[in-house]
């Protein structure tokens, strides 16, 4: 059973480690009684969107020596935008690096970036899932998550 203190500490650590940035705070400010699940809904949407984009990126990068850099850049641009919109800072940062490699038409760089993005995405997804689980438990027990 999680305590509010643990939730606060966990959230704080996510900010400290750069997984989240201030935009996540902005999201929380948009949540209220009329939209009690706003944050979970947006983040869930992000997961769905990101997974689609990652699948497409895999396909494109899989072309190896025939990579359509413009297409890859467009896909990464979308992921950069959506990660920025929810405050997923580390994912956003890797997207920026990825875009630079696209511009340089650097195949090796693109390969590496794809691996990095997959890793960062998996990490942040796990963090979010833990965060939401903690909030849910506290809420179910009659408490409320601090804002």
């Amino acid at each position: 059973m999680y305590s509010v203190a643990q939730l606060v500490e966990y959230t704080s650590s996510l900010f400290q480690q750069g997984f989240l940035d201030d935009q996540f705070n902005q999201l929380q400010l948009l949540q209220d009684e009329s939209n009690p699940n706003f944050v979970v809904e947006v983040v869930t949407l992000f997961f769905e969107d990101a997974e689609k984009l990652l699948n497409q990126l895999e396909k494109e990068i899989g072309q190896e020596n025939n990579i359509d850099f413009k297409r890859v850049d467009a896909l990464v641009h979308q992921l950069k935008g959506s990660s920025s919109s929810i405050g997923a800072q580390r994912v956003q940062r890797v997207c920026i690096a990825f875009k630079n490699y696209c511009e340089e038409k650097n195949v090796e760089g693109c390969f590496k970036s794809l691996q990095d993005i997959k890793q960062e995405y998996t990490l942040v997804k796990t963090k979010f899932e833990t965060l939401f689980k903690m909030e849910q438990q506290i809420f179910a027990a009659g408490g409320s998550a601090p804002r």
Partner: protein
Amino acid sequence: MAQFHVLAVDDSVIDRMLIERLLKTSSFHVTVVDSGTKALKFLGLVEDEVRNEKPHSIAAETDQVVEVNLIITDYCMPGMTGYDLLRKIKESNSLKDIPVVIMSSENVHQGLTEEGAEEFFLKPVQQSDVNKLKPHLLKTKVKNEDDLINNKRRIHNNAIPLKN
């Protein structure tokens, strides 16, 4: 007019959700679409009918009157970009007075104000940005009311030459 009606345009599903929430928090009535083409359709403007428009009509080509008080659009979209949309709106007699705001993750605002954009917001858009919208809407409201008064005056006093 009970509430201001804002039309938001963005191809990103996440950004649509965000902008809608931000605008609703400011008590705007919101319509969200995912492309410039859909935005123009919603505004009642269809490509080949642009030339046949009468001035001061809103959505002249459709049966329903759609009143939009502000358009906020993403800049980087596939197909019709936010820039294309801005230009089409400003070239239209019935739509050119609607204030347009551009949003983008890149700092692309050079030249947008010349094209008629009221504001540029860097993404991710925040509450403080949305709070800047009301003055633009109130300015247009006053202008519309002035136009309305001038039109009524024109109708009732045909012999008197127009002031403006």
